[in-house]
């Protein structure tokens, strides 16, 4: 009976893959997405090989390994589902307008040895990434942002997550080192055996563990800034500053095991780093804008021990170490003070910085300027 179920399920999966392969072959892609398509072709072929193995092994009638064949079939079904639901749409939904994002990402990947050979694609959604080692990278971004230069610097933050996984062991060590310092800052002075002490210990544990994820986000912001310069500061701020009170203040229970630090805190780190990169005017501007919104909302900063100025220097040091380890490119290597684009001369960071300059100078006329530039790019 189990053998029949497994045979049917393997055949069913095989059929689904054959349909997917056909759909994949019918879709042409831009040159920047060729390696992504090739990866998908290989992935389907690899699952097919494993399905054929399952079918052959079932014929051997070794009943002792049926649980393993079941497990393999389930695992291959999950892999197929993952690919078809998350990776295939990037090919299937491909539109002419995708070319802008693909070109930007192709350029970004080519600037870093870690990503030079890594296939990638874009998909619809909020800004996010699948930064996996065994799969291509998918960058998600809202449909409206796919057509504009202004929010593409947020890709640089997402790219930071990929840099993190490319250097995971070293990066985890940096975070661990910081978490251990944090633990000593938060350690209750005297060990006691009462409920309050246990509650305090649990809070310390929550804070220290939460910082694993927060550290990665602050690193990604630093990557965004280092690559994108002013364009990242602007995109970050415009994208997040109307998110409401939650961007400034969160309840203690919401901070517990949250994946991102409060956005206001992130702006504090971004502004400080920007000042060190000689973006003093832009950094002050960013801080002032967020402070004015906070004032209007009647919010004052409260982090319930999840952040204190006591940690500041250690966090900065940790992020500095991470940047040295991963070595993202720097906007400072090119002149950013340009007013008009020369396609043969300027790179995408310069184009994005120029775009923000035009946008803030005259929002009403920006779209005309942008569509001319984008049409030259694609």
């Amino acid at each position, binding site marked *: 009976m189990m053998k029949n179920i497994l045979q049917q399920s393997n055949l069913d999966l095989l059929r689904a893959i054959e349909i997917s392969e056909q759909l994949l072959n019918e879709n042409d892609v831009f040159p920047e997405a060729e390696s992504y398509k090739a990866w998908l072709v290989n992935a389907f072929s690899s699952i097919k090989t494993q399905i054929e193995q399952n079918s052959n092994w079932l014929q051997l009638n070794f009943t002792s390994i049926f649980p393993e064949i079941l497990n393999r079939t389930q*695992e291959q079904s999950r892999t197929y589902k993952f690919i078809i639901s998350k990776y295939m749409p990037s090919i299937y939904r491909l539109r002419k307008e995708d070319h802008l994002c693909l070109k930007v990402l192709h350029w970004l990947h080519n600037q870093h040895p870690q990503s030079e050979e890594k296939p990638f694609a874009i998909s619809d959604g909020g800004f996010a990434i699948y930064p996996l080692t065994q799969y291509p990278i998918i960058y998600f971004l809202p449909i409206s942002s796919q057509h504009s230069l202004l929010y593409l610097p947020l890709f640089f933050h997402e790219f930071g997550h990929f840099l993190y996984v490319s250097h995971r062991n070293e990066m*985890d060590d940096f975070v661990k080192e910081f978490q251990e310092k944090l633990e000593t800052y938060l350690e209750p002075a005297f060990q006691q055996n009462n409920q309050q002490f246990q509650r305090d210990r649990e809070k310390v544990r929550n804070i220290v563990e939460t910082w694993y994820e927060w550290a990665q986000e602050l690193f990604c912001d630093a990557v965004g800034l280092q690559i994108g310069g002013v364009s990242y500061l602007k995109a970050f701020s415009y994208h997040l500053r109307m998110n409401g009170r939650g961007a400034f203040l969160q309840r203690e229970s919401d901070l517990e095991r949250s994946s991102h630090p409060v956005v206001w805190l992130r702006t504090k780190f971004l502004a400080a780093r920007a000042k060190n990169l000689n973006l003093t005017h832009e950094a002050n501007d960013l801080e002032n804008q967020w402070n004015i919104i906070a004032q209007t909302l009647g919010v004052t900063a409260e982090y319930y021990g999840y952040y204190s100025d006591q940690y500041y220097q250690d966090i900065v040091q940790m992020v500095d170490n991470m940047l040295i380890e991963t070595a993202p490119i720097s906007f400072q290597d090119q002149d950013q003070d340009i007013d008009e684009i020369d396609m043969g001369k300027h790179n995408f960071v310069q184009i994005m910085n120029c775009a923000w300059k035009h946008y803030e100078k005259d929002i009403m006329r920006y779209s005309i300027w942008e569509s001319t530039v984008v049409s030259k790019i694609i």
Partner: protein
Amino acid sequence: METKWLTVQSFQRNQNLLDLISKLLIHYKLELEGHDSLFGKGEIKEAEQEIKLFLEKLSGLVKSLEDKKGDPLTGTDYRLRNLARNFVDAKSKRRMYKSILFKTSPEPVLDMLQNNNISENLIDSLTELRRLLEEHISTDSSKIFGHL
């Protein structure tokens, strides 16, 4: 700026571990029954090496949890911290998890893998580790695929 990366990284890690465990279990079972292996020696060695690395990492986390109760787990993502805590919980579920891996610690299993000591103990331990990982990946899967 969303946290998809956390879930998909855990999904990829668990899928990979499940694949390796299946491979090893097939190989060990057939070897104990006196059949030829379905895999090359290099493939098995590589799978053993990866499982050993994972068990070493898990062992360190489990030791931290057991020796320093209430202390934070550092340098590790949320999903792996969760897995380590689920592992410690599973040790108290004696009916479901009765292999040497859960009765004692990952060390004896690491020794068996190191010394190529293929036994029912090793098979039972890997089978139960697979069960724990299957529970874990179902959470990742629901977040990625949703429910029907």
